[in-house]
């Protein structure tokens, strides 16, 4: 195993013929052993980045290394399992034969195929043709293909897509076991609660650019401070008192309670102000900002999914 980061890219850029920039000037480092989340709205550039990492498409600019070797290096990519933009297999071949074919390319014995099928719980249907698989079974086969030969690095583009609840839990456990076995995982997902749970670090990509990077806690707070939920009597008076405090950004009445935008650290000060104003505080609690809230916060100001024209203008 070579040393250094599992993935390290600088200035990675991909623009298409029309001038549209799918990924622009991306810097990204994924250390070995990390489970790294890659999040961003539709069209943000996640899949494009992953394609460049596995050499399917060539960057317009920028350099990088995967497992210590330049982008597209065959020796490195033989140790990278990936599932990018959905599972793609020969429809007329069985799941097992599809994997056996891949094993031939990699020079792996068929026993590896069976092991991979077991890991995604598809062994019992491995003899069926791929075309007869359900969405989730196709997805499982895609993950099995990525796992073939126990690669050092896994690049998974929306791996839980189409999986049933049990499948999603199994996927979480699988990724956990990969991390425990010192494998590196880069995964993209729109399931932010999932990402929050399994990833060590996260990169938020928006319109092809990296706009936030860090641990889950970092990203959560990057979206803004959390909020306080307050139940008090009388409520309208409480609202006026809290709104007058300098530390408070905004106050809104939601279902008989106050939602107060402020740093949760100000909870005591808010409580004191209410007590001094002779208001009964029935409940006061900190509402943690979820990753989802932070994500919406960081990415919302740029409006809806960008149009082609907007992309070209970048």
């Amino acid at each position, binding site marked *: 195993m070579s040393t250094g980061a599992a993935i390290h890219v600088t200035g990675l850029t991909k623009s298409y013929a029309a001038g549209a920039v799918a990924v622009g000037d991306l810097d990204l480092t994924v250390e070995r052993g990390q489970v790294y989340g890659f999040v961003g709205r539709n069209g943000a550039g996640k899949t494009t980045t992953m394609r460049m990492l596995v050499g399917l498409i060539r960057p317009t600019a920028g350099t990088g290394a995967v497992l210590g070797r330049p982008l597209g290096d065959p020796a490195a990519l033989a140790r990278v399992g990936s599932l990018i933009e*959905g599972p793609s297999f020969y429809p007329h071949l069985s799941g097992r034969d599809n994997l056996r074919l*891949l094993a031939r*390319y990699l020079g792996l014995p068929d026993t590896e195929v069976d092991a991979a099928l077991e890991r995604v719980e598809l062994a019992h249907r491995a003899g069926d043709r791929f075309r007869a698989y359900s969405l989730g079974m196709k997805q499982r086969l895609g993950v099995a293909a990525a796992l073939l030969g126990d690669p050092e690095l896994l690049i998974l583009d929306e791996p839980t897509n189409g999986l049933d609840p049990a499948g999603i839990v199994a996927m979480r456990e699988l990724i956990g076991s990969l991390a425990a076995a010192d494998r590196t995982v880069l995964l993209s997902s729109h399931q932010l609660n999932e990402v929050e749970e399994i990833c060590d670090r996260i990169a938020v990509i928006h319109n092809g650019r990296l706009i936030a990077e860090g641990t889950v806690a970092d990203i959560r707070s990057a979206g803004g401070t959390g909020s306080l939920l307050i139940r008090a009597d009388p409520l309208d008076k409480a609202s006026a008192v809290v709104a007058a405090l300098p530390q408070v950004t905004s106050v809104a009445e939601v279902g008989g309670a106050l939602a107060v935008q402020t740093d949760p650290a100000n909870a005591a000060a808010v409580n004191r102000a209410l007590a001094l104003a002779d208001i009964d505080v029935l409940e006061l609690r900190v509402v943690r900002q979820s990753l989802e809230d932070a994500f919406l916060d960081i990415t919302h100001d740029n409006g809806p999914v960008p149009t082609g024209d907007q992309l070209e203008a970048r």
Partner: protein
Amino acid sequence: MIGNSMTAELFALRRRRAVWVLVGFWSAQILLFAYTISYVIYLSMGADFAAGQAEALLASLLPASVDHYIVGSMPIWGGPVMLIIGGMVSAGDYRNGTLRTILARFADRRALLLGRYAAVVLVMLIVSIISLVVGTACSTVVSLAEARPLVFPSFGQFLTAAGALWLVEIAWASVGFALGIVTRNVGATIGIGLVWTLLVENVLGSLLGALDLNPIRAVMLGPASAAIAQAQGGDPSAGGGFAITAATGPGAAVAVLLGYAVLSLAIALFTFNRRDVV
């Protein structure tokens, strides 16, 4: 690496029915056009034909002629089939996105393509042998029906015929292989291949032949393939598959056929290496 790719492609080809249907189709053409129809024509040749002409046709259908007779059938009947097989191998992976599944892991594109090409070359060798076996069987039946003595070509002649068939098939399949990479679509490859065979090789070819423009015909696939057949003793006037005549000697024809193979492979490699795969 090339070995892995070839092994994998052969694994896939074994399970690819369309390829074997095409090989069967070619065998059926030998049975139907090269032998059955020709034999029926011979039987219907009445007294108004010169005795020599009928005898020449029959001679080409007998086992002693099987080596060059099959080679002679290849240019017009077999070529397009081999072209399609080549295209199916190279373009087939674009349809279901399987190319990205493979390339993401097996990123040596040159090795991937060379391995697949090697698989095609191997399939062509198999086709050559099948062709000779089918031809030998058919000619044996004709011989028995006509109560002629069974005389077969020597082993050396069979080997030469297999080699000649192989070369001609490789040339055609290589063109299909390159077309498949360039168009990334099996249907388009078949379309272009058939139009080309029909218009360029057949129509334009016979036009150029009539105008005596042999230097141009010399670098065409059909005439070059025919030259190989004639060099082995094939007789263009015997009917059967010999609609295309040679324009050069066998040496130049071998060079032309190898040229097609090398040039096609170079185009395929160049194109495949440059393009993004999505």
